[in-house]
């Protein structure tokens, strides 16, 4: 095996272990860290496939923005370093049936597909397929309309999220004092100024 192959292998192992940690971690923060490991592992695979541009974008967008967003959401919901209480929740037996069932179904589907049609190798990518020129040419040429539509979709989603959040927000004076993010995190204000939340800033 070439050193490049080893590199690919290491990245694959990191990605798979990260994915396992993401779904199995009790603690949401550790789950987010697992997701980060998966994303970095996949970025490494992109590098090995000589798609460096994609690798850098993977790191900037997914690791630098999406995981950070997850972390913010988790923090606002209020975790602690001990993890969830770990008690048996109602319905937790369902996963012992659902997970094997879905696995068997997926595996069965794959085997069935392989039986029905012979799997074909993909065409080898032309040289320079992962460069900025190639990606830019595709995004701003062939795929311009879907690209712009997806940006419109994101804007609509952002506007919708803000509209939903705003309509539920009441005046700061009418709201119970315990709902502030800081109070939820620490069970009380640390400093009078910390008790002011982002919503209060927006309302001002």
């Amino acid at each position: 095996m070439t050193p490049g192959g080893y590199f690919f292998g290491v990245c694959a192992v990191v990605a798979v272990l990260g994915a396992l940690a993401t779904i199995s971690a009790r603690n949401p923060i550790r789950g987010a860290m697992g997701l980060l490991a998966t994303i970095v592992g996949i970025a490494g695979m992109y590098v090995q496939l000589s798609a460096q541009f994609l690798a850098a974008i993977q790191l900037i967008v997914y690791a630098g923005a999406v995981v950070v967003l997850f972390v913010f959401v988790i923090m606002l919901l209020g975790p602690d370093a001990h993890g969830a209480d770990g008690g048996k929740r109602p319905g937790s037996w369902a996963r012992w049936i659902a997970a094997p069932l879905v696995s068997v179904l997926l595996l069965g589907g794959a085997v069935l597909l392989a039986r029905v049609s012979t799997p074909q190798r993909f065409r080898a990518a032309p040289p320079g397929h992962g460069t900025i020129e190639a990606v830019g040419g595709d995004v701003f040429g062939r795929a311009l309309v879907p690209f712009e539509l997806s940006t419109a979709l994101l804007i609509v989603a952002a506007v919708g999220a803000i509209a939903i959040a705003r309509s539920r927000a009441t005046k700061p004076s009418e709201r119970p004092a315990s709902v502030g993010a800081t109070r939820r995190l620490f069970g009380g204000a640390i400093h009078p100024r910390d008790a002011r939340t982002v919503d209060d800033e927006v309302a001002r």
Partner: protein
Amino acid sequence: MTNDPWLRALLEGAAVVTALMTAVAWITWLERKIAGRIQSRLGPTMVGPFGLLQPLADAVKSMQKESIVPRDADALLFWLAPPLTLALALGTAAVIPFSPGLLASDVDIGVLYALALSGLLSFPIWIAGWASNNKYSLLGGMRMVAQGISYEIPMVLSALVPVVLAGTLSMGGVVRHQAEHGWFVVSAPGVGFVAFLVFLLTALAEGNRIPFDIPEAESELVAGPTTEYTAIQWSLFAAAEYAHSLLASAIAATLFLGGWDGPVLPPAVWMVLKTGALFLLITWLRWSLLRLRSDQLMSLCWKLLVPLTLLLLLGAGTWVTLAT
């Protein structure tokens, strides 16, 4: 040199990291000397001539101290955060051209790679703050992430100005273009200079330096995310901060000040001189300015820097179109 590219990459990487860590050790000495002079003190004087052996003494001291992990901390993440921070800070060095021939890896996305690593840097610091299970650490970590993700946007946009002007994302390519057509800080009228200033400001914010050291804010948060850290792990954070400042200076010198380009002296010397001058400027700012408030920090970023850098990018595009 051996012909195996992977072995070569490993050796070059080891050489670059060793050189950088040595530089970082004596930069702490330099900073303490400058800080001393600015505050009418002498700085380190006792260990060796001019206190030059102080970094070695500090290293030995921090290595023999006890590493303490708080009882209620998340031990795995607590241990993981410091080396991760240092690795991300040092990783940028791979794409910085120190001279025409001295460049670990001239990939065609060098600028993006450096920005990606820089953008990730706030993450392990936040992990440190969270894993410590201490409210000051956590607040510091949250501030770090909020600040990092906000300032990443004007940082990327201002770094894209030289990219647009040079027409390439490769660090080596940006320098070669400047060697032929003049440094960007002066060549594109106004645009390059303002982008340079914005880039320096945002690099300060990403590197958690005064006037943007709000996450650490020792007068209100003890030491922010690193409050619970001791011994060698704390030293790793300190080394990462200095390495980031140094490499951010190197990137700014590469993108805006022509990198290794310069008359008479050999290229590598020019690169070191420019990086050193920028680092000196950063240190000077650190010991002259006050800390901003969180809300001032955010309004500076979103209300001034982001629109400004968008305009700069537009200006750079116009300039390139008119020039060709």
